[in-house]
C-alpha cells in the first residue's frame, strides 16, 4: 500500500549504503578497469547516480554520454528521451480474449519498436494457446507457446498474450537489491539498465514470466534499429541486464502520445490502451461494461493489465 512511504525510506538507506560502498568500490574499480581502456566515460558510468536522484543537468549529461556510446557502437544517431510521467495519468491496458486470434503480429511489432535482440532472441510478449474448455487461468502450465499451424485462429482453441502486467504492487520491485527497477507515477514499471546488476531476482519474483535476461550480447541489424528511444525503455541494452515491456514508454509518454506498438499492429483490434483516471477512456469503458479479470489476481499484485471478453 504505502509504496512511496516505504520506498523513500528504503531508498535513502540503500543510497547511503551505496555511498559507503563508493569509497571501497573506488579502490576495487581501479583494479577492475584495466589501465588504458579507462577513459573518463567509463568512470562516469561507474559512478552514475540513481536515475530518480538525478537532476535535469545530470540526466542530460548521462543521456549525452549514452548517445555518444551508442553512436560509436552502432554507427547510428540515437535520441534518448527522459520524458517524465504526466500528472493525472495512470496507464491501463485491455486485452480482448474473445478477439485475439494468436497471430503473433504484436510480438514482432514489439521486438522492432523496442530494439529487442534478434539473436539471441528476446520477445517481451508471449502468446499462449489453450484448448477451449480446459482449466486454464491459474494453470498456465497447460499453455502451448510453440504452436505453429498454417492458419489461425484454429478451431477449438483460444489465445492469451502475456506481457508485463505493470502491477500496482510489483513483486519484482520489492526484491531488486539495487533499486534498478521501480514503478513510475503513471504506473509503468521501469528498469535502469545501467543500474541492473543482472542478479535476476526480479525474474524469479515475477509471477507472469514477463522479464527477459540478456544472456548474450544483444544483436540487431543496423537498418532495423529504432533510434527514437527513452532512457527507461527501448534504448539499447547490455549483456547481463534484465528487460521487459514498458507499455512503449517512448511512445505513450507524449502529449499527444501514440498507442503502444502492439495496440497499433493488432489486426483484430484485441488490444486497448488508455488512462485509468479518465472516465471517458477506452479502458474505463471496458472495466465498466465488459467482463474483466486480472491474471493471478489472488497474488495481490494488482495488475494494470485487464483481460476482458468483448462479446
Amino acid at each position: 500500500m504505502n509504496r512511496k512511504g516505504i520506498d523513500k525510506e528504503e531508498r535513502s538507506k540503500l543510497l547511503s549504503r551505496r555511498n559507503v560502498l563508493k569509497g571501497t568500490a573506488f579502490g576495487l574499480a581501479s583494479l577492475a578497469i584495466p589501465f588504458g581502456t579507462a577513459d573518463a566515460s567509463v568512470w562516469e558510468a561507474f559512478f552514475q547516480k540513481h536515475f530518480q536522484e538525478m537532476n535535469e543537468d545530470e540526466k542530460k549529461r548521462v543521456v549525452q554520454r549514452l548517445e555518444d556510446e551508442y553512436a560509436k557502437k552502432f554507427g547510428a544517431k540515437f535520441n534518448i528521451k527522459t520524458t517524465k510521467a504526466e500528472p493525472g495519468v495512470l496507464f491501463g491496458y485491455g486485452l480482448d480474449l474473445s478477439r485475439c486470434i494468436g497471430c503473433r503480429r504484436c510480438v514482432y511489432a514489439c521486438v522492432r519498436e523496442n530494439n529487442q535482440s534478434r539473436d539471441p532472441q528476446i520477445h517481451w510478449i508471449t502468446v499462449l494457446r489453450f484448448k477451449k474448455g480446459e482449466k486454464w487461468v491459474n494453470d498456465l502450465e497447460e499453455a502451448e507457446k510453440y504452436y505453429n499451424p498454417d492458419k489461425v485462429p484454429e478451431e477449438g482453441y483460444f489465445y492469451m498474450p502475456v506481457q508485463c502486467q505493470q502491477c500496482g504492487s510489483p513483486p519484482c520491485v520489492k526484491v531488486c537489491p539495487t533499486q534498478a527497477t521501480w514503478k513510475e507515477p503513471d504506473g509503468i514499471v521501469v528498469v535502469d539498465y545501467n543500474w541492473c546488476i543482472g542478479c535476476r531476482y526480479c525474474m524469479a519474483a515475477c509471477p507472469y514470466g514477463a522479464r527477459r535476461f540478456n544472456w548474450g550480447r544483444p544483436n540487431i541489424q543496423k537498418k532495423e534499429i529504432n533510434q527514437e528511444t527513452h532512457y527507461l525503455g527501448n534504448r539499447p541494452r547490455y549483456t547481463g541486464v534484465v528487460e521487459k515491456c514498458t507499455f512503449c514508454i517512448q511512445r505513450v509518454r507524449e502529449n499527444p502520445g501514440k498507442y503502444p506498438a502492439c495496440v497499433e499492429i493488432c489486426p483484430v483490434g484485441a488490444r486497448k490502451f488508455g488512462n485509468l483516471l479518465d472516465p471517458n477512456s477506452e479502458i474505463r469503458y471496458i472495466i465498466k461494461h465488459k467482463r474483466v479479470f486480472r491474471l493471478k489476481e489472488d497474488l495481490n499484485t494488482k495488475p494494470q493489465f485487464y483481460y476482458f471478453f468483448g462479446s
Partner: protein
Amino acid sequence: MKNNTILCIAAFLIALSGLLISADVNATDMEKAIEQEKALREGKVKESYGIPKFFVSPPVFSEGMFPCSQCHAGMEPNPERRELMFHTEIAEGFDHAEEQRWCLDCHNPDNRDKLRLVSGKLISFEESYDLCGQCHGTIFRDWKAGIHGKRDGMWNGKKKYRLCVHCHYPHWPKFQGFKPLPPPENPRDIRYRKLSQDETPLNPLGDNQDYEIPLSKEKK
C-alpha cells in the same frame, strides 16, 4: 493515562492516513475519478460516444466498381432472389444471413450509389456503419466507444477508426484466418559454447565485445 492512549491512537491514525494517501496513485486524481464515475452512474452526466470523425481510408471497392450507377442507372431494379448474371462471386459466396436477405435489403434500388436503412433513409457508403449497426447494436456501441475494432493514432488525441467493411467483407463478414508469425525459439535449441580458460564470463562495466559469452546456435 487514558489521555495518553487516546493521543497514541490519534497519532497512529494520522500516520496511517498519511500512508494511505501516499499510496500508488496521486490521491486527488483518484478522488476526481471516483466522483466522475459516481456522477455517471447516478445519471447526472451522460456517457456519450459519438460517431468518430477520423477514418484511415474510404471504403474499399473492387476496381472499376464504383459508382454503381455506371451500369445500374439504366437497369430495372429486380428484388427477386435469382441466379445473377453479374456479381456471381458475391452470389456464390454470400454468407451473411443469406436466408433472410437479398441484395436490395441493403442496397438502394433506385439509386445504387447509396445504401438504404430499414427506415428508408438513404446513406452513403462512407456511413455504412449505420447499416451494420441496425442488427449489430451491441457491437456498434462498442465500436463507437473504441472497443470493437482496430484503432490507431493517439491514445490521448486524434484516433483513426476503420469502417466495419475494412475488416469484414460485407457479403461474407467472418474474419478470415491467416498464417501466424513464427513461434519463439525453444531454449532447448540454443547451445552455449563452453568458455575457454582465458575468457571472462561477464563484463561488469557494460558490454565490451572482448568480454562476451559467445553464443552459437546449433539444432540438436
